[in-house]
C-alpha cells in the first residue's frame, strides 16, 4: 500500500469542500419543511382524526422502520418510472428523466425527516399539560391564540433537543445522496477516491467535513437552547424584571 499522499489529500479535501452547499441544501430544506409538517401530523395523530391518524401511523413506522438507503433507492429508481408512466397516461409532454436528481433527494430526506419530526412533536405536545390550553380558553383566548401563545412556546422548548438530534441525523443521512448522482461532499470525495484508488485520503476529507458540519449544527442548537434559556423553566434562575421570551 502506498504511503499517505498528503498532497492528494489536500486537493481532494478542497474539492470535497465545494460539495458543502449541496450538503447544506439537502439538510436545511427538508428540515425546515419537516417542522410545520411534523407539527401538523403530530396534531392529527394526537386528535385521533379518523383515517389520517392511522395513515400517518403507518407512514411513521415505514419511514422510521426501514433503512434510509432502501428508501433512497426506491425513490430514485421507482418514482421516476412511475411518474413517467403517469405523464404518458395523461399525455403531457414532460421528460421526467430530465428532472434534476436533487429533487428526488430532497423528497426522500423530507419524507424521512418529517417522520422523526412528527414523533418529536407528538411527545412534546403530550408533555405539555392539557390544562394550559384550557386555561387559555377560559381567559377568553381563541383556540388558535391559546395554542400559539401558551402551548407552542412550551412545546418548542421541550422539542428542541430532539430536533437537534434529528438535524444531525439528517445531515449524516445526506451522505447517502451520492447514490442518486447528487454531488454533495460525499459524492465528490468518493469520485476522487475511485479514480485515483486513494480511498483513505478521499474519505478522510469527507469524514472531517461531516464531523465539522455536524459539530457546528449541534453547537448551534445548544446556542439556541441557551438563548431561549427560558426563565420559566424549572431549575433556571428567574431573572427579575420583564423578560419576554421571544419564540
Amino acid at each position, binding site marked *: 500500500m502506498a504511503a499517505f499522499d498528503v498532497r492528494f489529500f489536500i486537493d481532494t479535501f478542497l474539492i470535497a469542500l465545494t460539495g458543502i452547499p449541496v450538503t447544506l441544501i439537502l439538510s436545511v430544506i427538508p428540515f425546515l419543511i419537516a417542522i410545520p409538517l411534523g407539527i401538523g401530523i403530530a396534531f392529527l395523530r394526537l386528535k385521533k382524526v379518523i383515517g389520517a391518524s392511522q395513515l400517518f401511523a403507518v407512514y411513521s413506522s415505514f419511514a422510521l422502520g426501514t433503512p434510509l438507503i432502501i428508501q433512497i433507492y426506491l425513490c430514485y429508481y421507482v418514482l421516476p418510472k412511475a411518474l413517467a408512466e403517469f405523464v404518458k397516461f395523461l399525455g403531457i409532454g414532460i421528460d421526467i428523466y430530465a428532472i434534476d436528481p436533487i429533487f428526488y433527494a430532497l423528497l426522500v430526506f423530507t419524507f424521512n425527516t418529517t417522520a422523526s419530526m412528527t414523533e418529536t412533536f407528538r411527545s412534546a405536545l403530550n408533555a405539555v*399539560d392539557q*390544562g*394550559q390550553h*384550557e*386555561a*387559555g*380558553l*377560559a*381567559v*377568553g*383566548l*381563541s*383556540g388558535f*391564540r391559546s395554542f400559539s*401563545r*401558551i402551548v407552542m*412556546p*412550551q412545546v418548542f422548548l421541550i422539542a428542541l433537543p430532539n430536533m437537534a438530534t434529528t438535524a444531525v441525523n439528517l445531515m449524516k443521512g445526506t451522505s447517502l445522496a451520492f447514490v442518486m448522482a447528487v454531488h454533495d461532499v460525499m459524492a465528490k470525495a468518493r469520485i476522487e477516491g475511485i479514480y485515483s484508488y486513494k480511498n483513505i485520503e478521499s474519505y478522510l476529507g469527507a469524514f472531517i467535513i461531516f464531523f465539522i458540519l455536524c459539530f457546528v449544527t449541534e453547537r448551534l442548537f445548544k446556542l439556541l437552547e441557551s438563548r431561549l434559556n*427560558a*426563565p*420559566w*423553566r*424549572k431549575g433556571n434562575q*428567574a431573572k*427579575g*424584571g*420583564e*423578560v419576554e*421570551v421571544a419564540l
Partner: protein
Amino acid sequence: MIEIKNLSKSFGSHHVIRDISLTINDKEVVALIGPSGTGKTTLLRCINFLTCGDKGEISMGGLTVDCRKHSRYNLLNLRRKSAMVFQNYNLFQNKTALQNITEGLIYAKGLKKPEAEKRACVELEKVGLADRAYDYPHRLSGGQQQRVAIARAMALDPEVILFDEPTSALDPEKVGEVLLAIKRVAREGITMIIVTHELDFARNVASRILFMDEGIILEDGAPDEVFQTPKNERTKRFMQNYNNDFIYNI
C-alpha cells in the same frame, strides 16, 4: 344572570349530568357540594364549554348558546363572560404572574398593554402578591399560584367566576390564604360558583348551597336550610358524615 336549561352530558354510557336546569342570579355565591364523581366538575366545565354538553342551553349575560348547535364565535363570546379557577391552578407556565393576568386582558378584552398591566397590578395587590408580579409560576408556592389564578379571573370582570375545588391540591397550611382570597372576591359582589369539599367554608361564604349526586341537583337552598334541615335522604347522610367528621375534629 346565568341560566342552565335541561343540560345533559354522558361519557359513553355513563350519564354524568342528568337534565339539570338551574338559574343563578347576579351576585349570588353558590357552593356546589356532593360526593366524589357525581359530575360537579363536569357541570362547571359545561358552563364555559370546556366540555360540551350533549343537550341543553347555557345563557349568560344575554347570550344563549345551545349545546347542540353553536358557532365558534358564540363559544368565544360565552367564554369571555366567565372566568375559571382550576383545581391545579393552570397558570401559564411560560408567563410571569403579571403576564398571566395581562394575557386575557390584552388578547381577549382588547386592552392596551399599559392599561392591562395597571389592572393586573391592582388585582395582584388585592391577593397580596404585588411583589411577585415578575415571578414565573414555578417560583411560587401552590397557595401563591392559586391566588394569582384568582387575580387572573378577577381581572377579566366576568359575569361569573367558576371555582373547581380551588383548595384541594394545596398543603393544609396554604388553604387558609386561598379561602381568604375567595372570600374577598365574594365581598366584591361577583357571581361565583364554587365546587368545594370544604363544607365549613361553603357554609360560611356561600349564599346558596347546591347538593349534587349522580348528575342531579338534589338540594338547593340557603346554607342553614341545607345543612340543618336537608329534605333529601342522600343529603342527610352526606351531612351526617360531615357532622361526624366535625365531631372527630373537635
